[in-house]
């Protein structure tokens, strides 16, 4: 990965719905396809899913290996994605025959019932004459013998992983009713060097660590990257001018600009859900308040006026409210206000200092960090402050970020043995913490579904 801060300027994926199947498709399937996914209640119990290797019409050499090799790798990646969700149990596909190409659309249901599968995810990989790949995925209800969903993608050979993530998302959305989360990217700050002169660089990677790229050179300290809703730009705080100032970097090009003119300090940026506004903190003679600025610049509109510190703003997904941190009570606590600055009210009342509130994607919860003494942990509460629950053990857990579907919280922690700052993930309801590998130390994560 070296020092090359390169970026694939355009990794467009051509996506299409399969209208013509390799063989005939059921009428019911077409019906299900045209209707949007109905809102489902998440199953409390995990579902048994069978994910055999995908099929290929003809084994063909491609830039990414043979189509048969890809068929296996894609099934493995889908399995790895779905494992992360803790919502599935995986049927032993070693015990049954690998589906042939025609069986992709006409599954041999009895053999899948024999391994107790409730769901079957199959598909195909074909090489196209233009050097690209066609990848199709199908989800079946094994008990009823119905097709539940299907999706198809035409991708370059270097982007088969995205198609696999999309297939995993299809099964995840159908089985849980959650929003998709696997075709997503994490922006974070890559750290290297010794603690007092850390080199910090803006970095972007797929949620599973693939396609890692750096966006800044490391000349200046950078902090708190936040995705724009369209995924094309990242607002962040940079010391490139010697003081903390909010800048906006375009992810697909080298464009990078200060959000505001002049030499005043600004930090803690966050996009509004429509992408038109960035909220941030600015200092006026020692009084740090929250302001709203057009995302392409303009005159900052003041939202808070208290003589205390107001910072760390985060929009609700409907854009109507903003959670933030204020120490007007004496210690930093979570507050919520309407997005025009009115109706400010305190919502956190637990012990210790609160920090970095982030509103959940479905709008019902706020994740935060809470510090008692020298121990910082991650917590989640309802937006009115009810039901507060600490979900990590610390001792240095900070800067939470939601997964795109709201089921997990990504955060930074200091590994107790190596003292490295690292990214980790925990279910939003609490549970096992898993490390999220990065090439170097990592901090200030932010996670978003890809939009293109």
């Amino acid at each position: 990965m070296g020092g090359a801060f390169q970026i694939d300027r355009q990794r467009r994926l051509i996506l299409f719905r399969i209208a013509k199947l390799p063989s005939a498709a059921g009428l019911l399937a077409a019906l299900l396809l045209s209707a949007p996914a109905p809102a489902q209640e998440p199953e409390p119990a995990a579902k048994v899913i069978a994910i055999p290797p995908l099929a290929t019409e003809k084994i063909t050499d491609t830039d990414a290996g043979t189509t048969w090799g890809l068929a296996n790798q894609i099934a493995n990646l889908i399995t790895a994605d779905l494992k992360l969700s803790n919502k599935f149990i995986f049927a032993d596909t070693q015990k049954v025959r690998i589906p042939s190409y025609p069986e992709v659309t006409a599954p041999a249901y009895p053999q899948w019932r024999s391994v107790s599968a409730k769901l079957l995810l199959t598909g195909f990989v074909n090489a196209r004459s233009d050097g690209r790949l066609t990848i199709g995925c199908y989800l079946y209800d094994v008990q009823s013998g119905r097709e539940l969903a299907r999706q198809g993608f035409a991708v370059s050979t270097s982007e088969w992983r995205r198609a696999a993530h999309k297939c995993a998302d299809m099964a995840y959305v159908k089985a849980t009713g959650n929003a998709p989360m696997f075709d997503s990217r994490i922006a974070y700050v890559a750290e290297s060097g010794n603690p007092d002169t850390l080199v910090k660089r803006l970095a972007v990677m797929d949620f599973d660590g693939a396609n890692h790229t750096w966006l800044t050179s490391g000349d200046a300290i950078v902090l708190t990257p936040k995705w724009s809703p369209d995924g094309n730009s990242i607002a962040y705080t940079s010391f490139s001018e010697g003081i903390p100032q909010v800048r906006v970097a375009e992810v697909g090009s080298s464009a990078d600009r200060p959000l505001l003119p002049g030499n005043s300090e600004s930090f803690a940026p966050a996009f509004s859900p429509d992408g038109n506004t960035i909220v941030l903190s600015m200092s006026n003679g020692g009084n740090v308040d929250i302001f709203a600025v057009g995302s392409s610049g303009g005159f900052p509109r003041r939202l808070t006026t208290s003589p205390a510190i107001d910072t760390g703003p985060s929009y609700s997904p409907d854009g109507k409210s903003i959670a933030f941190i204020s120490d007007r009570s004496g210690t930093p606590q979570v507050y919520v206000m309407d997005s025009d600055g009115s109706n400010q009210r305190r919502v956190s009342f637990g012990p210790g200092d609160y920090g970095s509130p982030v509103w959940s994607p479905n709008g019902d919860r706020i994740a935060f960090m809470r510090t008692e003494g020298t121990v910082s942990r991650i917590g989640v509460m309802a937006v009115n402050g009810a039901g507060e629950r600490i979900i990590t053990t610390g001792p240095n857990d900070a800067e939470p970020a939601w997964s795109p579907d709201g089921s997990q919280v990504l955060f930074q922690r200091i590994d107790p043995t190596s003292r490295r700052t690292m990214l980790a993930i925990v279910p939003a309801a609490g549970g096992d913490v898993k490390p999220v590998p990065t090439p170097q130390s990592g901090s200030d994560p932010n996670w978003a579904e890809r939009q293109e």
Partner: protein
Amino acid sequence: MQFKPILAALLVIAGASAAQAQLRLPVIFPLGRSNAQPPAPPNAAVPGALTQGALIAAAGSDTVYFSANGATVDPTATATLAAQARWLLANPFATVRLEGHGGPNDSRDYALALGDRRANAVRDFLVLQGVAPTRITVMSWGKERPGKVLIGQTLVAAGPRVVTVVVPAPMPMPMQPAPAR
């Protein structure tokens, strides 16, 4: 999600050609600017020189400390800052940058805000002592420069503090003659 159900045949053809036309090579680009000049090194105290070393020699320290979450200038800090103010008044060409720091357990954003509040508290104190506001700039490092101090035999995190950094003044320019009309 922007998957629109569209007739496949059309899209496959249109998509393939569009994608080929749009393939672009990765570009290498440096982002951001280089840092502002690092803090001036603590030079040996030269009488009359506008250096960090001269400030430290005259005032006893270039750093004052704060309690967690606090931005109140305590009696120890008051003594140090009063001495810094006397040095600044005795050296009217010296300018300073006040660098505020948050604590290691603060959230990222709150540490920046606290550093700023502390630097401004020091600024207000120096201004009250008669130092011209135009000679002072303030900035916050948040928790990005944790620092270490030697207490007894052990290095400990420096924590919440403000460092007064002497900024090399621009060379005085000779008076320019009025431009000819």
